[in-house]
């Protein structure tokens, strides 16, 4: 191989090219798409071009002038691509419920009439006599919208265009998501650190058993692990039966379908993500440091506090980040072992993404989650001043 630096650079670039391609295809592109889809509109404009140009001049009060109504009729008469029309209808119905049936009824009525006949829209469906359907049409025309982003944080624009509160619970659910994730992370750290220390300190089969106990759940399906917790935690489940048999309680404790159940199950499921990073950091700490500390007169506690713990902290930090991030996206576990007040934001995102194909809303919620998480991450980095943080 020749030693020319330019060539070396080219081959180095080629070596990392797959990585960049991978990042671009699986990370950057979906991210850009998610942001784009949450702020773009224009599906309605695309299938109703005449209405789009006519409705812009309307002041939004009462009913729009006849030109707008005629433009809508012309648009509905013109043959349009069915899927594009479907996108437009979904967009409109998501703003005003009932737009779907209104448009399908109007379209078939308009297309059945001879082209030269005048059409009375309110005669086809009285809803055309209401201003709000027209206002929704007008609001749907611009190519960009803040509607989804506002709705993601429980806000909307009223008919005058100013921002007001909307009936939804996304903010509450978002805060709840972060609370549960933080609680689970803290518990994982509390259990995971001693566990990793014992595993790292032990040798031979004991270490193998300890590691296997952490790894085995990772290889089991999430659904199976969650279902097992249902069996353990329910009122007539093993834990309650044991507690009653021992005489600690008379009545079964409510351990499931509430926050307790969610936190227990999620902590168990996510514990490996905490134990493994700490364990690998601990393995890298020279074993003679603790004896060295005691030879200098430190008590065991002091040696732990001033020597071992600071060196193990990067492991705890990366474990915590992993657990926290993974926990944010949970929704199967809360759905199965949680109650109504334990549902997390992913279930809302899933509803919009798969349930109603409202990808704009799903994207907006995802974006809000991403931005909040990034902000928290930066704050965390600033506070911990950990050297392995990006951007801190």
């Amino acid at each position, binding site marked *: 191989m020749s030693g020319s630096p330019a060539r070396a650079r080219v081959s180095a670039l080629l070596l990392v090219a797959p990585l960049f391609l991978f990042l671009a295809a699986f990370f950057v592109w979906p991210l850009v798409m998610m942001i784009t889809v949450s702020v773009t509109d224009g599906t309605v404009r695309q299938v109703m071009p005449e209405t789009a140009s006519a409705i812009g001049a309307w002041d939004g009060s009462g009913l729009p002038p006849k030109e707008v109504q005629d433009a809508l009729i012309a648009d509905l008469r013109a043959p349009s691509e*069915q899927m594009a029309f479907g996108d437009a209808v979904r967009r409109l119905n*998501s703003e005003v*419920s009932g737009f779907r049936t209104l448009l399908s009824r109007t379209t078939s009525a308009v297309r059945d009439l001879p082209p030269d006949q005048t059409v009375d829209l309110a005669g086809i469906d009285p809803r055309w006599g209401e201003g709000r359907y027209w206002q929704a049409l007008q609001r749907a025309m611009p190519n960009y919208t803040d509607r989804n982003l506002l709705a993601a944080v429980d806000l909307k624009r009223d008919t005058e265009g100013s921002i007001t509160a909307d009936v939804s619970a996304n903010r509450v659910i978002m805060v709840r998501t972060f609370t549960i994730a933080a609680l689970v992370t803290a518990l994982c750290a509390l259990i995971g650190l001693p566990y990793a220390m014992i595993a790292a300190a032990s040798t031979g089969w004991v270490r193998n058993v300890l590691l296997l106990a952490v790894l085995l759940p990772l290889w089991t399906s999430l659904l199976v692990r969650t279902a097992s917790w249902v069996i353990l935690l*329910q009122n*007539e489940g093993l834990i309650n039966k044991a507690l009653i048999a021992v005489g600690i309680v008379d009545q079964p404790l409510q351990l499931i379908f509430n926050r307790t159940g969610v936190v227990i199950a999620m902590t168990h499921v996510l514990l490996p993500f905490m134990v493994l990073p700490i364990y690998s950091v601990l393995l890298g700490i020279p074993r003679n440091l603790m004896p060295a500390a005691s030879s200098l007169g430190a008590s065991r506690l002091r040696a732990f506090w001033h020597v071992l713990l600071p060196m193990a902290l990067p492991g705890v930090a990366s474990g915590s980040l992993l657990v926290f991030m993974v926990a944010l996206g949970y929704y199967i576990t809360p759905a199965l072992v949680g*109650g109504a007040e334990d549902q997390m934001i992913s279930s809302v995102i899933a509803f919009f993404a798969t*349930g*109603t*194909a409202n990808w704009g809303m799903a994207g907006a919620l995802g974006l809000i989650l991403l931005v909040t998480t990034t902000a928290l991450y930066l704050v965390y980095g600033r506070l911990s001043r950990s050297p392995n943080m990006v951007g801190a």
Partner: protein
Amino acid sequence: MKVTSTLLRIGGAGLALGLMVAGGTASARDLTVVSWGGNYQDAQKKIYFEPFSKKIGKPVLDESWDGGIGVIAAKVKAGVPNWDVVQVETEELELGCADGFYEKIDWAALGGKDKFLPAAVSDCGVGAIVWSTMLSYDADRLKTPPTSWADFWDTTKFPGKRGFRRGPKYSLEFALMADGVKPEEVYKVLGTPEGVDRAFKKLDELKPNIVWWEAGAQPLSLLASGEVVMSTAYNGRLAGINKTEGKNFQGVWPGSIYAIDSWVILKDSPNAKEAMNFIAFASEPVNQSKLPDYIAYGLPNKEAAAMVPAALQKNLPTTQANLTGAIALDGAFWVDNVEELTKRFNAWLAK
């Protein structure tokens, strides 16, 4: 330089191989049928998928899914879908049909529309089963049987928790019935803002006592473990668990809501012709009539329904006695309102 050209060569070969594999699978993919999984799909495998595969002499692939028009939209918009025949719920049928996600059904190949229940006929789909969501309880635990949604709400007469499917669909309908609305007027009332308020107000009463479930198997385990005294549940699952695990779970037919699941063919499916043949095969009376043997769902093909033995008839939603006081799910209502009402429902839950 050598490294560069080797890398390029490897990359090129990899790309070519990738394209070959992708191209190869796209054109030669076998008919793929997608249904709801569980013991329902096991039954379908026995009576539809395997016999049909034998008939055409080619494999039939089957997958399962959990529903959602977003899934269908993503598959169809991707170009050539990797599913051919899918079993969908009422709303997915209506939404997808309006938005052009499905191929049109060739009703002549099925022997004409009048062979089927009117509600099972659509331009884009053929009814596959009729199923009910109903009030259910464990008759071994509950000595006085509840008979209505008013009983479901009555926590003094029947102390204990209640299982409810999380989401506005069914919850609002059942709440209105509990509040005294006649079953046949439920959707008329629900169509007004006051009706929706009334339903949420009624749900308020029961809220502290509700355990919310999401997957169809959950209410059964909730009932079995005594976690709840009553729950909403799917009729097929009830009859199934009574048969397989010797339970004595009972359902209340008056006030139940039945719905039809349909077979659809995804737009631009490369196996559209075979897909249509499959649907015709699965709709033939002699094949379809075997289903209630495995799972207690009603049959949309009238001839098939008539062939079901009387002993099995009593568990089916389509049996005349079970239809008294029951209503059909209003797909059009939910297609219009599901987004707004889910938003409100979530806000109500979080309150």
